[in-house]
């Protein structure tokens, strides 16, 4: 009973409406549209009842049971729409659970979005006080931390400038600096560290490490697996609103990447521009030979209304700690046709065994028509055939290797 947070049977239900719409929408889009429409209906025309057939219950969270101990740093991972943000919103008391309950011991500070409540017309100084109060700080506390906030945000010179004249970097830095100086027992963060330049990010991480060392409980959502691994010692994986996995961060992240439910061999992209339509992308597992550094085969299904020139494909491969290890690209002219298949063979990637995800960016001339990370998950294994002496090394350095690079090793024996 002494947990910092005790979640019991938590569920959150939304009502969504399904209506006839474009056939080129992903389920996620459809859910979002459904939500939007439901909201629009209620908002704009109250007298118009929703067609009952179109309404569906959607459980954003279902049967979540979890205990978080004081001082734990918990990462929440999962794909978009898995319920991560909803969980944070319930924990932050912004939205009410439909069933179950949460007991929280200690003061909670949550930062779900950077800079909420900033007023553009007010100066940096004024906004520090306002935003501090919005986040739950007392005036006295803000006054005490004021210099620290200004220093962390690096905005000394602009304290008396309205924040609407701030650059977006300054804006974000100020917002984070305020939040980082919150004194709370429990800190809830939603993907807020993924902002600012590199220097600022490492500053943030330093600050977060400090917060963690003070023994405060942190709950942290991010898509950046590297950050999750660095910042947290325990993680939970949400899949479709349910708790799929919980345990130490490294294991859960690995589970996230290798989970069969996630790692479909083929993903529907269903993205449409006026001239071409991306059907799906597939990792051709059957073409993968056993051994190290074997070519990876992907195939991308594309329909084209007409001949399309200058289509550039950029593929990236990410490891489980969120590093992009390999990037490749090509520019092609696509023929007209309903069922074009682009075969991609990626050779000499030098990737060690492990779990990976693929990102795809597609543009026509200079216009980006598709850009998405983690569209496909795949696993490389069966290294034993060619590299069995490496196995002990790989076991010790899992997820930290990056790529192997070919090199010549020459030994010259000295002759006396």
């Amino acid at each position, binding site marked *: 009973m002494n947990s910092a947070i005790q979640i019991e049977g938590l569920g959150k239900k939304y009502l969504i409406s399904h209506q006839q719409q474009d056939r080129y929408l992903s389920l996620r889009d459809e859910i979002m549209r459904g939500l939007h429409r439901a909201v629009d209906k209620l908002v704009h025309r109250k007298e118009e009842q929703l067609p009952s057939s179109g309404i569906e219950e959607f459980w954003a969270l279902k049967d979540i049971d979890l205990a978080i101990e004081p001082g734990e740093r918990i990462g929440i991972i999962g794909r978009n729409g898995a319920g991560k943000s909803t969980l944070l919103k319930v924990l932050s008391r*912004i939205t009410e659970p439909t069933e179950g309950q949460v007991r929280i011991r200690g003061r909670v500070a949550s930062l779900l979005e950077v800079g909420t409540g900033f007023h553009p017309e007010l100066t940096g100084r004024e906004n520090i006080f306002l935003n501090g109060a919005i986040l739950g700080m007392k005036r006295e506390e803000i006054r005490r931390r004021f210099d620290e906030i200004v220093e962390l945000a690096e905005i000394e010179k602009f304290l008396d400038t309205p924040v609407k004249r701030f650059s977006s970097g300054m804006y974000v830095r100020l917002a984070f600096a305020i939040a980082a100086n919150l004194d709370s027992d429990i800190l809830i963060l939603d993907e807020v560290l993924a902002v600012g330049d590199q220097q600022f990010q490492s500053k943030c991480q330093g600050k977060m490490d400090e917060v963690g060392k003070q023994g405060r409980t942190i709950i942290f959502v991010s898509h950046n697996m590297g950050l999750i691994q660095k910042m947290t010692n325990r993680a939970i994986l949400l899949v479709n609103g349910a708790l799929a996995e919980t345990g130490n961060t490294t294991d859960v992240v690995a589970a996230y990447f290798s989970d069969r439910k996630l790692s479909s061999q083929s993903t529907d992209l269903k993205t449409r521009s006026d001239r071409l339509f991306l059907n799906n992308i597939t990792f051709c597992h059957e073409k993968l030979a056993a051994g190290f550094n074997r070519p990876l085969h992907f195939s991308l299904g594309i329909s084209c209304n007409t001949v399309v020139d200058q289509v550039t494909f950029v593929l990236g491969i990410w490891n489980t700690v969120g590093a992009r290890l390999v990037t490749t690209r090509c520019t092609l002219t696509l023929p007209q046709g309903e069922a074009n298949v682009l075969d991609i063979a990626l050779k000499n990637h030098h990737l060690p065994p492990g779990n990976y995800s693929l990102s795809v960016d597609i543009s026509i001339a200079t216009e980006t028509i598709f850009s998405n990370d983690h569209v496909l998950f795949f696993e490389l294994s069966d290294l034993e055939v060619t590299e069995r002496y490496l196995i002990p090394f790989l076991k010790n350095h899992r997820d930290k290797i990056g790529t192997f690079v070919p090199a010549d090793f020459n030994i010259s024996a000295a002759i006396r």
Partner: protein
Amino acid sequence: MSDRELLIRRGKPIQGVIRELWEFRELFLLLAWRDVLVRYKQTILGISWSVLRPVLTMAIFVVIFGKIAKLPDGGVPYPILVFAAMLPWQFFSNTVSESSNALISNAAMVSKIYFPRIILPTTSMVVSLVDFLIAFVLLLMLMAWYGFYPTWKFALLPLLLILAAVTSMGIGFLISALNVKYRDFRHIVPFIVQLGLYVSPVGFSSAVIPDQWRLLYSINPMVGVIDGFRWAILGGDTTIYWPGFALSIGLGLALFLIGVRYFINTERSFADVI
């Protein structure tokens, strides 16, 4: 770590609301300060708008109702007669129109941060209060100009101000909560406020209403408030129609209770709907 334990579940005990309001008092004050501060930013005339608006409205009413329609003034200078009513009316109309949009215009805060949402519409009342105080100083100047001396009744003005606040907050809470779900109210409010100005006894004394209709007329809760203000400010032989005044007070209080209740009951779904 503090020992305070918080339980999150469906439905919120109503008794926690007041304690929570106290906890968040600093946020309330800061939001009010923010709204006052930004109100006239990037305007050339700035705070003078708070002076100009009531003065211009009064001038128009004096000309239309006093000079052209020649409505009875009951022996007081017509500008003071109008201004005494302008004070509560502008306070009411500003509060209602600002507070009804308070949740929508702070939607980002509502969906990303936890705090008692009732703070937002209440803040709008504080902003209107600042305008009220400025207009009140104008009234004092106007009375000095006409050599018009207040009586002991003048001391009852704070009570009447509270009545005006309660009445307008009730409507403000109700409409701001409804506005989250049904944006229709964004269009209804300006209409209510505009119509109300002519229906309420602002440009004329409610003594012009035939006696048999006065009780019915007092169904508009602002009639009681405005009559009260006139009675307290003008003093002298100004009389108050007590049954109507009592009815207005009753309706004002009822509106307040309904507003607060509806607001608190729907508050928990704001973040999902807004």
